[in-house]
């Protein structure tokens, strides 16, 4: 139709919205009225008022009568929506009708989902490490892997000069950042005051640009170019200069004055390093001569966007040949052309930054990295819990098939197609799953603090993230609903209406092989979890309680930060300490046996002709008080003593060292000790009983003590309570240490820390095994209730015919005992393999006694009986008239 020109033009956007939302057959008259009205309005009012009023009336047309049917393009299919409404209503009614069943189903799913959610948060956090750095996928760390002669060296370190060489000669390397000495604690002087600093390191200015470290004061560019410069974190600045502006201030470290060039926001927790105090790398390189054989620098390369790490690795191999090979003869006694032959190897390789936290577990990592194994185990447990909850859903839904059978029959008679019925049941299960997800959010919010305690993290719950959690949750809710609902939907929709309406059940509720096997599966998994939990707990308490060869309890180590200040007062301090009743002994040497200090020398047996044994040994310099202070036992010979001047060439071996050297008569044997290219002639004066100085995952290595001084720490043995001893120590320390900070640790605590990852694992396995088992038990409660209910009539008849309640009870119990017993038997091989593979990491381990399996099986059967007997007892004891009357 032709359109005459409007005298006034109403707001175009309003018209568009109207066009878009209104039914086509109504749009003409509506727009007509509105336009006519607008014309009248404009004739008397301002354009603004008229426009406003036009919008107002337009919005008033957005009512049901005028709106397009959005869900279907043509109006024929409104039945669909009505059907979904009906499904929803029926689901709700069924939910209300059988409250126990609904509760069991929903709570099982909720526990499963909540566990999975928490585990998901943990795993996502583990995988998020170092990903906050811009362009993190272009950043790589250089690792050196050498085995030359007797020396092995596999560390995330590279030669000092490698970074410069790479930036000059390899175009793919955009920037190379260097860090030295990892993460250490020390002290700085601020005038007369001495303050502790934590997480200190040396780094080049490039570290500040390769990694994303936002500055709040100062300029990161070239901030660490001068040797005596430092940048620090916000919290360190607040610690050192409370209430002042730290920028430009002077900090004295190691008698040198460092100027504060910048302050950055505290580094995030999920990075493989967290520095609070970064001094210039040049400070180290300017003081010491360093070349290709000084492999002591964490080197991070930022590669060009499309550069392949392999091409850089090829360049690294070239550099190795050109610069390292000529030097190996003098350092390692291996000719340069043999570094990749005769069992030797030498290479550099690159590690992607994002892989460091979970996949790198080398010697000398900057901080303790995560454990991919823990992440995998816990993910597996999460999936298992959800799986058990899913089985519950399938079992309870199919068990109740008889009840829903009539409904299915009626629907089919009224013309429902099978497809529609499947849709209905899938819709219902999806509703359950969505409901459970919503409840699980609440559970997670409540439980997260406890979970954080177990894993030692500060996880928070938010629905965001990439990809956003709400999206993941929505998708999983639907998938879970469809997954768990598909079998029940398939079964329920298959009923023959004629038969179900006549009252026959086609689905034999008592004897479904599928349901039984699902129960068996559930309980095999649960039993396996119990066995693994028992084994993990036992092994860890074995590790904690095993006699170590020294007494880790009642032992404190103290770090000395400043030798000058300490040595001035050592005598006073020592005397004061020894005068206290709760201090038993004191030793200046802190080779704490648990931290496994690495100082490897070579020991050679002299004489005896051709049978020359050479072994590499841990070598610790100690004094005469060390062995008694640590509580070690001398097996043969004697301890060092001040009375023998010759003890400077004396050695004390541990049993393993003596055994490895195959000394017939160890005491008095002459040995040659090789250290730093020199050989020393030594004589064995004693044998100390083997003690554990590394993780229980390693066997005890050969070790020697020689007389010397490790000046940097003190060990103190005390009696009485640790708190009291610590406070005594602290008072004496503060009076006599020249203002050094008090950094003391209980050795038993350090020992426990060594098993932090395992302890974490134990906590996780314990918590989630309990959850998994409770979900399985919930399912059993539901099934037991339902099945005993089904057999009420049978029980009534049996009773009338003379069966005793105890017989009925036994019969009902037997029904459930058989599948549980089968699952216990099935669980034995699986749990044996799982427990054994976990234990195989330990050299010192418990043996897998059959008691674990018997205990777990008994526990499982007991739990099942407890669950089932309540219902069974009720039915067995009930009056038969009640059971038989209901029809």
């Amino acid at each position, binding site marked *: 139709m032709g359109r005459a020109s409007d005298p006034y033009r109403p707001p175009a956007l309003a018209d568009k919205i109207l066009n878009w939302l209104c039914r086509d057959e109504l749009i003409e008259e509506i727009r007509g009225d509105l*336009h006519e009205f607008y014309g009248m309005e404009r004739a008397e009012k301002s354009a603004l008022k008229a426009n406003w009023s036009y919008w107002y009336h337009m919005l008033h*047309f957005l009512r049901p*009568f005028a709106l397009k049917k959005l869900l279907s393009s043509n109006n024929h299919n409104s039945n669909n929506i009505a059907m979904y409404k009906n499904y929803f209503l029926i689901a709700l009614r069924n939910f209300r009708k059988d409250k126990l069943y609904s509760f069991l189903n929903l709570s099982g799913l909720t526990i499963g989902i909540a566990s999975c959610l928490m585990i998901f948060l943990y795993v996502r956090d583990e995988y998020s490490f170092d990903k906050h750095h811009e362009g993190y996928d272009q950043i790589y760390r250089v690792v050196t892997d050498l085995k030359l002669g007797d020396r092995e060296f596999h560390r995330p370190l590279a030669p000092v000069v490698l970074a410069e060489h790479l930036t000059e000669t390899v175009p793919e390397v955009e920037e190379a950042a260097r860090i030295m000495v990892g993460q250490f604690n020390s002290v700085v002087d601020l005038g007369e005051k001495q303050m502790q600093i934590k997480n200190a390191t040396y780094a080049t200015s490039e570290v500040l640009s390769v990694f994303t470290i936002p500055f709040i004061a100062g300029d990161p560019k070239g901030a660490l170019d001068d040797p005596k410069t430092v940048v620090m974190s916000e919290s360190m600045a607040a610690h050192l200069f409370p209430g002042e502006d730290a920028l430009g201030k002077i900090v004295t470290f190691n008698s040198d004055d460092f100027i504060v060039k910048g302050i950055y926001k505290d580094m995030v927790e999920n990075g493989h390093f967290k520095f609070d105090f970064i001094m210039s790398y040049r400070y180290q390189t300017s003081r010491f001569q360093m070349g290709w054989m000084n492999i002591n620098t964490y080197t991070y390369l930022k590669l060009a966007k499309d550069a392949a790490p392999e091409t850089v690795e090829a360049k690294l191999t070239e550099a190795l040949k050109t610069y390292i090979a000529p030097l190996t003869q003098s350092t390692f006694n291996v000719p340069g052309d043999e570094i990749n032959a005769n069992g030797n190897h030498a290479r550099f390789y690159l590690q992607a930054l994002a892989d460091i936290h979970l996949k790198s577990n080398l010697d000398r990592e900057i901080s303790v990295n995560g454990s991919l194994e823990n992440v995998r185990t816990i993910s597996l447990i999460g999936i298992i819990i959800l799986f058990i909850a899913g089985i519950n859903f399938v079992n309870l839904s199919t068990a109740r098939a008889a009840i829903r059978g009539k409904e299915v029959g009626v629907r089919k008679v009224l013309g429902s197609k099978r497809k529609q019925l499947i849709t209905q049941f899938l819709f219902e299960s999806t509703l359950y799953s969505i409901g459970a997800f919503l409840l699980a959010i609440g559970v997670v919010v409540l439980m997260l603090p406890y979970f954080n305690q177990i894993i030692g993290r500060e996880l928070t719950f938010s629905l965001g993230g990439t990809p956003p959690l709400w999206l993941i949750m929505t998708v999983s809710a639907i998938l879970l609903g469809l997954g768990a609902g598909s079998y029940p939907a398939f079964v329920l929709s298959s009923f023959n209406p004629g038969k179900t309406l006549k009252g026959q059940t086609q689905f034999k509720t008592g004897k479904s092989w599928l349901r039984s096997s699902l129960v068996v599966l559930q309980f095999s998994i649960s039993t396996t979890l119990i066995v693994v939990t028992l084994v993990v707990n036992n092994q860890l308490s074995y590790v904690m309680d095993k006699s170590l060869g020294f007494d880790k309890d009642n032992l404190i180590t103290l770090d000395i930060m400043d030798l000058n200040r300490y040595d001035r007062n050592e005598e006073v301090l020592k005397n004061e300490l020894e005068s206290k009743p709760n201090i038993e002994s004191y030793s200046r040497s802190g080779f704490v046996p648990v931290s496994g200090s690495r100082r490897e020398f070579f020991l050679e047996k002299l004489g005896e002709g051709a049978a020359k044994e050479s072994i590499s040994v841990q070598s610790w310099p100690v004094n005469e008080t060390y062995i008694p202070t640590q509580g070690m036992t001398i097996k043969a010979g004697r301890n060092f003593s001040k009375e023998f001047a010759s003890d400077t060439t004396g050695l004390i071996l541990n049993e393993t060292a003596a055994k490895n050297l195959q000394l017939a008569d160890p005491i008095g044997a002459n040995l040659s000790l090789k250290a730093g290219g020199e050989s020393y002639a030594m004589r064995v004066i004693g044998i100390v009983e083997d003690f554990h100085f590394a993780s229980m995952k390693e066997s005890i290595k050969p070790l020697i003590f020689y007389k010397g001084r490790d000046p940097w720490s003190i060990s103190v043995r005390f009696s009485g309570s640790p708190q009291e001893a610590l406070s005594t120590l602290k008072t004496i320390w503060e009076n006599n240490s020249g203002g050094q900070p008090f950094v003391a640790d209980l050795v038993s605590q350090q020992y426990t820390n060594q098993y932090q990852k395992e302890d974490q694992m134990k906590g996780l396995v314990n918590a989630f095994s309990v959850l998994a088992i409770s979900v399985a038990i919930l399912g059993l409660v539901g099934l037991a209730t339902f099945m005993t209910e089904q057999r009420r009539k049978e029980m009534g008849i049996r009773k009338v015919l003379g069966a005793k309640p105890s017989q009925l009870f036994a019969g009902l119990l037997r029904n459930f005992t058989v599948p549980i017993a089968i699952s216990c038997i099935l669980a034995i091989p699986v749990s044996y393999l799982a427990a054994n593979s976990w234990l195989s990491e330990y050299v010192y381990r418990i043996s897998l006694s059959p008691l674990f399996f018997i205990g777990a099986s008994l526990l499982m059967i007991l739990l099942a009986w407890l669950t089932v007997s309540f219902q069974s007892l009720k039915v067995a004891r009930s009056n038969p008239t009640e059971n038989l009357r209901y029809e």
Partner: protein
Amino acid sequence: MKGTQLGEFEELVLLIVGVLYPDAYGLSIREEIINQTKRKVAIGAVHSALSRLQDKGFLESKLDEATHERGGRRKRLFAITVLGKRALEKNHELRNNLFNQIPELALKGLNLSGL
């Protein structure tokens, strides 16, 4: 039954369609409602009521010829059907009947308290 009840606003619209015959369409009905009752009514509300009344069978409608004042768009003209007339009469009768049954005293009391 629910479908054939006449709501208060619907009754008003139905009456006004009768008053305006043969020129009753959305906008004119709204104008008339505002003039006669001083009620503020959105055009959409009138259309909605018209659509309901037509669904119930109380109104019939046809599209008019195009005119210039509405940008060439046709208007929908409404007229009361026999069913509509009957519904109106029934309502009217019911009201009258009920009103006549109110005892004198009740009205007096109202007047008194109104004073």
